[in-house]
């Protein structure tokens, strides 16, 4: 399928994912209100906004992780390469193989480093030992973790430092070669050095996949993303090129938030 090209006052965007009228409810409570948003291919899109504004909820509806929570209802459309991921005959499990996710708190399995990274591949049916080893190495290199763990692949993933654990989780997500990677405050539990490494990594990964990252750190959003979306009270207030958003926001609320006047 050909990617759709959309012209805006800004640079044209090659759309990887698109939401239209996306609303998410927890029971009766609406957490996301009719969001129309496009994610450009090989770009990093940063989601910013005050706590509780629905960033995580929005992010989790991009790979149907909300389906795993009781009482969640999703309305509207989400497309990946123009194909609806909420269609009637779409298997959410398959969607998650194309759209991977890294969580706020690193959550390695209580297994070896190797088995952590190989998990998704084995689930997908890969049995060949040599091929698994190859893919695990590739994913660990991708996540800039290989050199630190190549001598201890069969030790527990829980023995790594916080920053290494988070990169292990990224390697685990990358191993299945998703097209889009969702990251929910991936650096919030890391020290500045580990955070800087993670940001470098995100910038490198962009060459091969599309990334959507939630962050509370404005500098981080400015450093790693090409586009930024500002959410407030479950609504998308404004979205645009990161540079423009941080220098000339169109909405007063965006400016107030970015300049630290609330949130």
């Amino acid at each position, binding site marked *: 399928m050909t990617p759709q090209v959309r012209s805006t006052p800004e640079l044209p965007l090659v759309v990887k994912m698109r939401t239209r009228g996306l609303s998410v409810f927890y029971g009766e409570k609406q957490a996301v209100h009719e969001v129309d948003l496009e994610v450009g291919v090989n770009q990093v899109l940063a989601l910013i906004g005050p706590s509780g504004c629905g960033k995580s909820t929005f992010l989790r509806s991009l790979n149907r992780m909300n389906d795993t929570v009781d*009482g969640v209802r999703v309305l509207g459309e989400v497309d990946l390469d123009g194909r609806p991921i909420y269609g009637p005959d779409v298997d959410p499990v398959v969607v998650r193989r194309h759209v991977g996710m890294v969580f706020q708190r690193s959550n390695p*399995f209580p297994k070896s480093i190797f088995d952590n990274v190989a998990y998704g591949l084995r689930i997908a049916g890969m049995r060949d030992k040599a091929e698994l080893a190859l893919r695990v190495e590739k994913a660990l290199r991708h996540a800039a973790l290989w050199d630190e763990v190549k001598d201890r692949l069969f030790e527990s993933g829980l023995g790594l430092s916080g920053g290494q654990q988070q990169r292990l989780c990224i390697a685990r*997500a990358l191993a299945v070669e998703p097209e889009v990677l969702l990251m929910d405050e991936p650096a919030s539990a890391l020290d500045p050095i580990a955070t800087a490494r993670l940001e470098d990594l995100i910038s490198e990964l962009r060459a091969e996949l599309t990334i959507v990252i939630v962050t509370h750190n404005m500098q981080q959003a400015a450093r790693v993303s090409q586009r930024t979306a500002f959410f407030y009270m479950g609504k998308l207030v404004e979205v645009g090129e990161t540079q423009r958003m941080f220098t000339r926001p169109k909405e007063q609320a965006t400016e107030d938030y970015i300049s630290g006047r609330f949130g």
Partner: protein
Amino acid sequence: MSDATSSTPFVRRDGIFDRILVVGSAGACVALLGMLAMVLLDIVIGGSGRISLEFLTAAPSNGMTEGGIFPAIVGTALLTFLMTIAAVPAGVATAVYLNEYAPTNSTLARVVRVSIANLAGVPSIVFGLFGLGFFVSTLGRAIDVTLFSGELTFARPSLLWAALTLSVLTLPVVVVATEEALRAVPRELRDASLALGATRFETVVRIVLPEALGGILTGAILAVSRGAGEVAPIMFTGAAYFLPQLPSHLNDAFMNLGYHVYVLATQSPDVEKTKPILYGTALVLLMLTFLLNVVAVILRSRTRGKLKPAL
């Protein structure tokens, strides 16, 4: 302490209540320990002299005034084993459904949980009657009529029915313990697995159950060790007063340590002569239960140790 507070009546009264509470609860603890010590000492002193290789490997003889308890040990082991393979898989499967699959507001899950709570409160003699009425007389009869052209084969008390009756009694404990172990598995691990494209089933089998295994085994062993000592449920459903040979089929009756204690204590032709045997049997039963509990405690501390790096 300032004058204002020391002159309020509350302080002094609280002090008295405090002291009464401390003395009272310490006394209760001592009484409890004392009773436990008395029971244990009585059985150990009375029984240890009796225990020998012969006692453990010979059958009762001379109207149960001599010989050993070998058939009762074998019967108890078989019963416990069969009960375990019936109760643990069913209990674990139930808990997995309740905790991993049922939606939080599911009516079915609520009904099952209430039933389990009620089942756990039923006196064990009622399970015995249920086993007799349902397994022996109804199920056994139906099997005989359909498979054995009415010939008495399964419609009588036997190892199979006693084990199933006991497994019904044990089931709630296994379910509750397993649910607890499953709840202790962090949601983050499930999320990580699902986000990698695993199905719910794959997540349960590859992540959740291995993580919960220690807790499940501990709970299962404790449940089984409790069930292994029960007498009332097997009295009408399969335990025998005395059998010259060991059970060789599922539909044979069997001897059992707990039931043997009961028999020796109430049905002996010569109370004085059976007394050492009675004590010896009680001690063996106690040691078997104790052994199972020790295994459970070891398993529990092992799994605790394993979890530590995650915290």
